[in-house]
């Protein structure tokens, strides 16, 4: 998380473990993966953890987990823990993208190979 001009520096005093209360796992049966779409079920409330509020603002429209992580500039695992908290509180709902929209793995590999050959 270091800016390009200042190697070795991060720009926020928050340590990641303080965001999650020390947890580093989102649980065994976490419904979230990278592309799970998340939709907010309520508006951010005052006194809420700022990341939760930001997630709720961000997911007024369905948003993928990776996007949320990128917006928050947090690792995906941490984001998943935050999302699990929100899901447990009923503040967001998650759904997977439709199966049909998911291309085959072979196609993806082919695309990758093609990109590498560029």
């Amino acid at each position, binding site marked *: 998380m270091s800016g*390009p001009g200042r190697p070795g520096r991060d720009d*926020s005093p928050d340590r990641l473990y303080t965001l999650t209360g020390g947890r580093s796992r989102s649980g065994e049966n976490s419904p979230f993966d990278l592309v799970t779409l998340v939709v907010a079920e309520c508006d951010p409330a005052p006194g809420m953890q700022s990341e939760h509020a930001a997630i709720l603002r961000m997911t007024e429209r369905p948003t993928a987990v990776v996007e949320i992580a990128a917006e928050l500039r947090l690792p995906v695992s941490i984001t998943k823990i935050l999302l699990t908290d929100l899901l447990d509180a009923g503040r967001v709902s998650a759904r997977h993208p439709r199966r049909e929209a998911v291309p085959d793995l072979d196609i993806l590999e082919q695309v990758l190979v093609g990109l590498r050959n560029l």
Partner: protein
Amino acid sequence: MTSPTPSGERPSLRGLLPALVLTAVPAALAVACAVVVAPDSVRVPLALGGSAAGLLLCAAVAVAVHGVLSARAVRHRLESVTQDLSRALQERARFAEETRQERIRLTGELDRERTRLTAELDHERTRLAESLAAERARLTEEHAAESARLADEHAAESARLAEGHAAERARLTEENARLAARLREAESLRSAAVSATANAAGRMQALATGMLADLRAMEERHSDEDVLADLLHLDHRTAQAGRLADSVAVLTGARSGRRWARPIGMESILRGAMGRINGYQRVRVHSTSGAAVAGHAAEAVMHALAELLDNAANFSPPTAEVHVYVEEVPAGAIVSVEDSGLVMGEAQLRRAERAVSGEGTGFGGLTGTRLGLAVVGRLARRYGLKVSFRPSARGGTGVLMLVPQDILVARDGSAAPAGPAAVQAAPAARALPSAASPAPELPRRRGASPAAAPEQAAGTARAAAPAGTGADPGPEPTHESPAPSPASPDADALPRRRRGRTLAEAERARSANRSAPQRPAPTPEETRTRAARFGSFRQAVRGTPEPSGTARGTAGPAPGGDVSGPGPASGPAPDGHAPDSGAAGTAPTAPAPSHPHPHPEGDPTS
């Protein structure tokens, strides 16, 4: 005097008798003759007459005789009285004579006695005068001798004392010089030790800061939850080590840790403080405050709060929670830390109050294990924090820390983390402070104009743009490097330093300046970002173990990976994977999987 003479007094009968007889008898004879001779006719009258005349004659003779006798007696008495008188006169003369003689005698005696006494007196007086004079002379002499002796003794004693005094003084002077030398030596030793400690602490701080940044970068990079857990553990330990280094640095008078280039929101302050203590999971934060602490003071506030939280957590039962409340008041923001542990005693409370008042600046009261309150005291003194203790309603001790208004910066209520959406807002927000160049003290209160104006400017990019970043220019150069034209005049101008900004700020401005020429052609950067994202995406989708071996291909990957996964890259969302421009410019295709270290790790302490 007069002896009674019976003849003289009572001569009558016996003395008168002869005369009477003598008279009566002739008279009787005369009368008897006359009667016998006289005729018978005249005889009777003649007898009568003649008797009467005889009687009368007898009476007259008696009276005359009586008179003669009386005169004779009186004369006799007179003579005797005269004799008595003369005798008395003689007696008196004799007596007078005697008296005179006696008087003469007495006078003589008196005179003699007087003379004798006078002589005696004179003599005595003379003797006394002499003895007095002698005594006086003796005493005078004695006194003179005593005086001389005492004067001698005094002089000797004075000389001895003066000598002793001089010796003592010389000894003390020597001692003084020796002590002064020792003091100088100790002072120099102390300052050397302090500066060595400060230096070491500073290097420890730099190391800890660098390690924290590295750990953060690693946490970004490794998606494996086991690795992440280990990294977070290391992160926590490193943060505590950094706090200890900060404490030593503060106590040795060095500056406290790093300086932040932008105001830090209260939530981040609290979490930053929590992250540095062991029992952070027991801390419960209740805060709706939108205030932020100015960058130059944020580290100090965090550090002081961390020490207070650590105290509260250490002195309460291991399962009890520590509650933190933030309240905004006109004087600033009050952070109260309440535990349910031990109640401090009176003396303990006084000692703690004295420690946090920052009065004693020496190392006297430090015990080695109780640095915390002394650190708080130093920080409070330097940054005007006010710390007080009181019994907590939770049964333990409550600590109130007032963060004064002049190190607070108003912030918009919903403080979102500085996301990529701030990119659009940043130029507009940056244009204002550089044009108006307000003093950093200006945006103190919520709703002050410098804070409000950026919000208007950022109105187009509402999404998550924190107007708070407008109070201070954008936090990191990351946000400004892709900045459109409004930033360019600022980049051309000389770097301006403002209070609370350090060398890092100038460095940042320089780097912005340097990156300005790259700005017109953002495409390579976007390409790089996309490539990086695609690389990580591919890695996640395929679940292929990395060379280091994140050996869980089943967990992470979503088989239904969307091709539009790189979509977020359309918004310029730079994350930690964005490598340096020089490094990735040559190989934009697949830098991430093969090269997991986007920037050099070797100089974290630079």
